[in-house]
């Protein structure tokens, strides 16, 4: 203790003064500065390590692996197109011939659910209705989600069954034109030739 006191040159307080006055020797001052520098260095070393560690995102390539940048881009899929109808209208043409293995039903009305391509997304379910006289429902290929069959078994019926959405606009006009949309409500097809 006396040696430490000597090194630090701690002087006893004078009578009537407040607290002790510590006067450091030059060697002690250098020592204190070195310790302070060491503490600062250690603190910032730790901060540097921590910040470097936290900034490394999981998807970033680690050091030693350099990422090759490229701006090359290709579409990932075809655009979503309206689904194909479950059976073309027969306007302006002869009726579709039935498959070789006829089913009991002679009329098919297909309701609202739009067929969905196996992987490509299809927009909101659209009312798709087909009336195919004398055409039994053939078995659907497994890969294609089959629309749900149902509805009124009336050959003359052209009433759409439910549904709404992008397919709600129905075609009008006869013949094999380009399918101009009709503003008429109800979504039925003309049966005129």
């Amino acid at each position, binding site marked *: 203790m006396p040696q430490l006191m000597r090194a630090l040159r701690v002087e006893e307080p004078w009578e009537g003064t407040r607290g002790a006055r510590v006067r450091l020797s030059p060697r002690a001052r250098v020592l204190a500065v070195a310790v302070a*520098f060491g503490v*600062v260095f*250690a*603190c*910032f*070393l730790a*901060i*540097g390590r*921590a*910040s*470097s560690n936290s900034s490394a995102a999981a*998807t970033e*390539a*680690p*050091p*030693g*692996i*350099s990422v*090759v940048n*490229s701006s*090359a*881009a*290709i*579409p*990932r*899929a*075809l*655009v979503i*197109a*309206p*689904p*194909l*109808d479950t059976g*073309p209208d027969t*306007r302006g*043409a002869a*009726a*579709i*011939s*039935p*498959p*070789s293995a006829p089913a009991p039903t002679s009329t098919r009305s297909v309701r609202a659910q739009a067929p969905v*391509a196996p*992987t*490509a997304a299809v927009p909101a379910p659209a009312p798709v209705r087909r009336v195919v006289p004398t055409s039994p429902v*053939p078995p*659907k*290929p497994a*890969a*294609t989600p089959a629309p749900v069959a149902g509805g009124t078994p009336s050959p003359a019926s052209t009433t759409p069954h439910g549904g709404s959405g992008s*397919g709600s*606009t129905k*075609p009008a*006009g006869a*013949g*094999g*034109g*380009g*399918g*101009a949309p009709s503003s008429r409500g109800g979504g039925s097809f003309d049966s005129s030739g």
Partner: protein
Amino acid sequence: MLESNRGLSTVLAVGVVVVAVLGYVLGAHSKSTPAHDRSSSHGELRPTFAASVLVESPSGWKPALPVPAVPGLTIIHPVAFAPLGNPAHAGLVTGQLQGGEPTPLPAAFVAQLAVLPETQVVSLSQTEAFRYSGVSLPGFLRSLTIFAIPNPGSNPTVLVCYADAAAAADMHTCEQIVASLRPVGQTGANDLTPDPAYASSVSSAIMTLDGLRLTLRQQMRLGATLPSVQRLATRLKDGFVAAVASLARLEAPVAAGQAHAALSRAVLGARDAYAALAAAAAARSLARYEAARARVYEAEAQVDSSLQSFALLGYHSL
């Protein structure tokens, strides 16, 4: 005296700043030192031959048995390394994948992923590789990063890094082991970088096709009479023919060769499907129409799948 103290204070302040900056820089640098210098926690690096590659692994990483299985990823001649030889929490599995697919990752494996992984072309010490990060496998509750190196005329080399959430540091070490990879008996890959010119040409062909397809499919839906279906399907078929011709004129980069061929095949399939649809409408056969319609969906899904392959080759999405 006052000036002397002020000068001393200035020197000390500058000294503190210098020491602080030095400490910060050294701290940050110690985390970004290459694998060769980062082995202190696991011992010295040592070269290890595994499958068809040579890697430098820390001595703390040892061969591990049994080799962990990655669901859906069949690795030929797998070899595993793990910290202390225990593959339970983290490790590296390397070997070869079955080749002949549009991308190094098998289609069956990709099919079970909820989302496509982030794909990067990375440069390792002596070869380039595809790096697939953020691989999310159902039922596989570990971080998973896959490196794949295509080998022309041979099976792709694969290196799989995995780690539990609590073993993130081991994941880092694993990737640094991969960084040291050197192909043995193979040339490696040095041309994996996506080609912007090629991508632009493919995109142009697909977007032209898509514009026509969207227009005609809308018309086909709105005016789906037999004659119109026949006419529109024929025009769509012609659109796919034009796309095939555009693709045939392109010279695909080596890395995208298989994907390009797959895309061409898929577009050809769609062309045939629309031809079948037109024929069914002409024949007025509902059964044939239904079959052709399903075929169109399948063919277009195949085109989508082929286009998706390019994402796994480092091509961005448009």
